[in-house]
C-alpha cells in the first residue's frame, strides 16, 4: 500500500507546491517510488515548478473522468528515477473531481507499486483542499512565521481531524507534521518574527523541519527544478533533511538559531538584520 501524504496550509503562497515538489523528489532520491499529484484544478503549477509543463497531455481530471488511463497521464521525471508527476487540469472547473474518483486513482497508484503519494493541496479550506486531504495517512502543514498563516494552519488542523477518511471511519488519526518555511532565524531572535517555538506552542504539533528564507527557492523554481536537487544550498539541504526525517532518520533541526558571523561581516554586510542581533 502506498502511503498518502497531503501537503496543505489553508493560506496560499506559503510554499505548498515548492514543498510538494521537493518532498516528492527527495523521497525518490532516497529510493522510494513516488508520485506527486497536483490537486489545484484550474491553477495547476506543480508541473511548472517540477519542470515538466511541456510534457503534460493528460491530467488528474481526465483520469478521474475515464478519458485516459493512469499510465498515460503519469509523467516520469527526467532527472530523478522513481519520480512521477500527475498534473492538474488547467481548463476544467473544480467540480470535475469527486471523492470516489480520487479514491480510485489513489488505490490504483498503490497497486502500481508506489511507496509514496504526495498530494499538493490547493489553498483554502473548501472542496479542493478537502479532496486533497481526504485519503491522507500523514499531513505536512506548511506554515510561514506570520499571523494569518498560523491561524489558517490551525483551521486546517481542525479539518484534518474531522473531514478525512481516517477521521470519518474512526481509524487512527492522521499524523500531522509542521513545516515552517520562509524562516529567518535572525529576525526571530530579535523578536521581529514569530519563532518556531511560538508556532509549535500555538499549533501543538510535532516539528518536521524549518526551511530558511532563501534565494535558492526562487532560483530553483525559475529553472523548473525542485530545490531539494540542489542540496548544497541552504533551502535544498533543509528539504533533504526533512525527507530523511520523514522516512525515519534522526537528524537534528537546523536554521533555528541565527548563524554566528565574524566580527567584520557583522559590520560590513548588507544583511537586513541589526549588526548586534546575531
Amino acid at each position, binding site marked *: 500500500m502506498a502511503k498518502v501524504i497531503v501537503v496543505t496550509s489553508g493560506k496560499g503562497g506559503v510554499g505548498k507546491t515548492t514543498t510538494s515538489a521537493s518532498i516528492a523528489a527527495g523521497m525518490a532520491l532516497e529510493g522510494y517510488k513516488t508520485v506527486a499529484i497536483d490537486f489545484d484544478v484550474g491553477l495547476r503549477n506543480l508541473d511548472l515548478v517540477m519542470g515538466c509543463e511541456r510534457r503534460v497531455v493528460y491530467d488528474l481530471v481526465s483520469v478521474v473522468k475515464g478519458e485516459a488511463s493512469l499510465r498515460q497521464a503519469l509523467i516520469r521525471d527526467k532527472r530523478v528515477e522513481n519520480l512521477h508527476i500527475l498534473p492538474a487540469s488547467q481548463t476544467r472547473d473544480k467540480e470535475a473531481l469527486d471523492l470516489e474518483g480520487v479514491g480510485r486513482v489513489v488505490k490504483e497508484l498503490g497497486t502500481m507499486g508506489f511507496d509514496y503519494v504526495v498530494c499538493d493541496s490547493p489553498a483554502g479550506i473548501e472542496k479542493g483542499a478537502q479532496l486533497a486531504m481526504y485519503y491522507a495517512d500523514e499531513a505536512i502543514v506548511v506554515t510561514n512565521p*506570520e499571523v494569518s498563516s*498560523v491561524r489558517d494552519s490551525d483551521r486546517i488542523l*481542525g479539518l484534518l481531524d474531522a473531514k478525512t477518511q481516517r477521521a470519518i471511519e474512526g481509524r487512527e488519526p492522521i499524523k500531522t507534521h509542521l513545516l515552517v518555511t520562509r524562516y529567518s532565524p535572525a529576525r526571530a531572535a530579535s523578536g521581529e518574527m*514569530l519563532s518556531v517555538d*511560538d508556532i509549535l506552542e500555538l499549533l501543538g504539533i510535532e516539528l518536521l523541519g524549518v526551511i530558511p528564507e532563501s534565494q535558492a527557492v526562487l532560483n530553483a523554481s525559475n529553472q523548473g527544478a525542485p530545490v531539494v536537487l540542489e542540496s548544497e544550498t541552504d533551502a535544498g539541504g533543509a528539504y533533504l533533511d526533512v525527507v530523511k526525517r520523514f522516512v525515519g532518520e534522526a537528524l537534528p533541526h537546523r536554521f533555528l538559531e541565527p548563524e554566528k558571523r565574524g566580527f567584520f561581516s557583522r559590520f560590513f554586510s548588507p544583511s537586513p538584520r541589526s*549588526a548586534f542581533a546575531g
Partner: protein
Amino acid sequence: MGMFDFLKPRSATAAIAKDRLQIIVARERRVGVGASYLPQLQQELLAVVAKYEKLDLDLVTVNVEQRDDGEVLELNVVLPEERQAPPPPTTRKKKRRKKKRGRHLAAAANLATS
C-alpha cells in the same frame, strides 16, 4: 548597509503576534463544531419567525458564547420598525423586541474539543 543598522530602533512585534494568535486560535477551536451548524440553524429559525413577521436575514443573529458554566446559545431577533402587513391579533405597541434564550450546550462543546 549594515554598519549603522544598530542605531535604528527595532520593533519586536512577534510577542504581540503571538498574544493575538493565542486568543483567536483558542476561540476558533472552542466554536469549531458549533460554528458548522450555526448558519443552518440561523436559516431555519428565520424561516419560523418569518411565518409570523416580515424580516431580514440580517436581523437574526445566532451566537454561541462561552460562559463560566458552559456554552450558551444566544438568539437575537430584531423586528422591523414599520409593519407592512396589517398587525396580527396582538395589540402590542413595542415594535422592537429582543428575544434572548440561553441553552447549555456542554455536550457539543465536549465534542468540539475531543
